[in-house]
């Protein structure tokens, strides 16, 4: 392992400069990804042995969770309350809220269940913005072409095409919910560029786009007919005789009980897996992002895709330690901020797609040109003073969250660069869906980060806020419509699908010691919290006392 320059020595060497040229030497092409991007580390991947994706490559840590036993069995449900609804939405981020709002608007009875509070999600943390082609020199076709190009192949073209065509109407819908955007002096939407885009297309509200979106959608849901069940993580989906999705089992963190929700359609909008800390990376993700939805859908038989590809956002904070992994928006680079190694040299075009930029940062640190952040961590400089020198006042005006982060870090980003390192940001793959967000299991819709196909192997900045609203609205409407088709037949719901899944696990000689969904990252010690003993009647932990 190469030795990087200690933080104090490196910061003394730094001088603010408005312009720095990019050296010609910087590029390595595809070899850069293959050598340094964490997706290309071969022994991190295994073949899945059970379930609909048996034989497909999957990240080892994710495979462990997918091929685990359930947290519950039929006996746990014996005395559980049963509730009926038309549409059950699992997940309270931007995707879940927009789906719930549209399903309720279409006349369905809707329950929205969320693991923590409504709005606890990655949406609230999104900073950079949302893509929609509204500028006169831009078109949906260009948006589509950029999305396909950035995806490094393997994209579901139909989904991407529909999403970019939805873009402008998604913005109108958000404004109608009461969301603000940054506007120019004439009231037009301001747009900024993103890595890998051919036109300015990212619409934004400061560097608080997700916060603004989430607080508005949360308020809209609270003021609608949607019934919100907070602190109620789903631990299993329910199936009917035909194997269709027929509801879910929720576990209440408030009264420590299970409830059965029978629903005619279920929409899973649980987000991604950042808090699994794949490959030991820090993450920009919300505390609850541990892949619950993938597990639930997989056990019920939903097909997944691209489980070996994840996005590492180039600019996660690397110093100070207590804020490690915190996101700094790509908007800062699109405003012109450089990335500099310890020698204060640029080493990549900062607006290349995220996978390339992340790999280049990892390379600089691996080869000893990075800055040592202590605690075994390293990073490179995000040269924020350079944009302040070129556009005085821009940081305060456009990036208040960055300024606040600086205050919390004891660093003024207008005068001093921030130390950054790639942070695990996004699950590129996920549940296979169609244009309405329907999975391969009838009755089960999946939307947002839990899905795959929309972004291929690399997502562009601003395309995920677009995705959650575009597919959220469509799935909400489709799920509400399906209610009528299902009709009034009384269906028997059960955990029958678990029996088959357990049999498969045993035949494959998988250990049945691990249970999932995890619900929380291991370091929160949820499994050891005696408060929740009531939810653990069935837990087979090794008794060490």
């Amino acid at each position, binding site marked *: 392992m190469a030795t990087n320059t200690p933080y104090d020595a490196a910061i003394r060497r730094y001088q603010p400069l408005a312009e720095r040229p990019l050296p010609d030497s910087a590029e390595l092409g595809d070899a850069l990804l293959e050598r340094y991007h964490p997706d290309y580390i071969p022994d991190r991947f295994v073949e899945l042995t059970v379930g609909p994706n048996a034989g497909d490559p999957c990240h080892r840590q994710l495979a462990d969770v997918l091929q685990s036993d359930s947290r519950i069995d039929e006996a746990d449900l014996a005395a559980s309350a049963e509730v009926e609804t038309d549409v059950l939405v699992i997940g309270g981020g931007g995707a879940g809220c927009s789906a719930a709002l549209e399903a309720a608007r279409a006349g369905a009875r809707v329950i929205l269940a969320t693991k*923590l*509070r409504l*709005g*606890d999600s990655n949406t*609230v*943390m999104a900073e950079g913005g949302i893509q929609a*082609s*509204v*500028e*006169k020199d831009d*078109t*949906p*076709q260009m948006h*589509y072409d950029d999305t396909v190009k950035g995806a490094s192949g393997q994209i579901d*073209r139909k989904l991407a*095409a529909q999403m970019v*065509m939805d873009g*402008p*109407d998604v*913005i*109108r819908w958000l*404004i109608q*919910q*009461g969301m*603000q955007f940054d*506007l120019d002096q*004439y*009231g*037009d*939407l301001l747009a900024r560029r993103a890595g890998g885009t051919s036109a300015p297309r990212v619409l934004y509200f400061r560097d*608080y786009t*997700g*916060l603004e979106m989430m*607080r*508005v959608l949360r*308020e809209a849901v609270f*003021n*609608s007919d949607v019934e919100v069940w*907070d*602190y109620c993580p789903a631990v299993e989906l329910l199936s009917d005789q035909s194997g269709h999705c027929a509801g879910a089992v929720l576990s209440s*963190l408030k009264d420590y009980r299970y409830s059965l929700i029978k629903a005619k359609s279920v929409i899973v909008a649980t987000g991604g897996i950042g808090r699994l800390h794949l490959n030991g990376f820090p993450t*920009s993700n*919300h*505390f609850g992002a541990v892949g619950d939805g993938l597990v639930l859908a997989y056990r019920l038989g939903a097909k997944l895709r691209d489980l070996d590809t994840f996005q590492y956002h180039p600019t996660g904070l690397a110093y*100070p*330690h*207590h*804020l490690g992994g*915190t*996101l700094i928006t790509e908007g800062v680079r699109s405003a012109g901020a450089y990335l500099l190694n310890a020698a204060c040299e640029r080493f990549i075009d900062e607006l290349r797609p995220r996978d390339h930029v992340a790999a280049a940062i990892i390379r600089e640190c691996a080869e000893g040109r990075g800055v040592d952040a*202590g*605690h075994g961590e390293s990073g490179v400089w995000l040269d924020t003073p350079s944009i302040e020198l070129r556009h005085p006042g821009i940081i305060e005006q456009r990036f*208040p969250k960055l300024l*606040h982060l600086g205050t*919390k870090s004891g660093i003024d980003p207008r005068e001093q660069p921030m130390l950054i390192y790639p942070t695990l940001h996004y699950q590129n793959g996920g549940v296979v869906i169609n244009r309405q967000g329907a999975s391969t299991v009838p009755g089960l819709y999946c939307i947002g980060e839990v899905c795959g196909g929309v972004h291929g192997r690399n997502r562009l900045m601003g395309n995920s806020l677009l995705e959650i609203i575009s597919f959220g609205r469509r799935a909400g409407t489709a799920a509400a419509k399906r209610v009528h088709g299902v009709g009034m037949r009384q269906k028997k719901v059960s955990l029958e699908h678990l029996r088959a899944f357990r049999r498969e696990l045993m035949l494959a000689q998988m250990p049945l010691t691990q249970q999932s969904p995890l619900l*929380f990252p291991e*370091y*929160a010690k*949820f499994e050891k*919290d005696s408060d929740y003993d009531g939810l653990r009647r069935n837990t087979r932990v090794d008794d060490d006392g």
Partner: protein
Amino acid sequence: MTEDAKKLINLRINGKDICAPEALSVIQALWYAGYPRVKGVGCLQGVCGSCRVFVRRAESSEVSTELGCELLIEEGMDVSFLIYPIPPYQTYRLDEIPNSWEVQAKFHEIFPEAAQCRHCGGCTTTCPKDIDVEKGVELAVKGRFREAGELFVQCVMCNLCQTACPELITPNHVALFSRRVTAYFHTRPSNLINRLEKMRKGELQVVE
């Protein structure tokens, strides 16, 4: 630097004496010391408003409110988590306000208590984002919704201001109402409207 990193800090969190290395946040210190913590943890980046804590620092009798994910531990600190959020108790729908002339009257129907502000400053003191909360309420009461909303750009809806108000005003929801009506009635970007028109006429298609 590595020498400093080993320095240990003693503090009390939720009544438990904890010893943890400096450079940890309150939540990280709690986990480090082996205590489970699930409720009151959220984004861990200071934007979700979940991890609200009361803090009393050593040698001080003053109690302040902060976010536990952003708060660095200090020697002798005493910290308590505030767990459950309070859902808003007023109900309104933007599409029930017929037009922008009616917003002010509607506001006072929805938030009748807002005009009762005693100017005690409790809401402003309690805000972990240093927003001039009281001023925002005052502006909204006068119908100056755009200005009121602009004060709340950084609001994470942690509800602390609501907890602090003796008149049961919900200042963060007052502010969010102000922000929402501003967008709903006044955001009409011509570049967006042009694009929507072109798409309506089928002039823009995507070839896969």
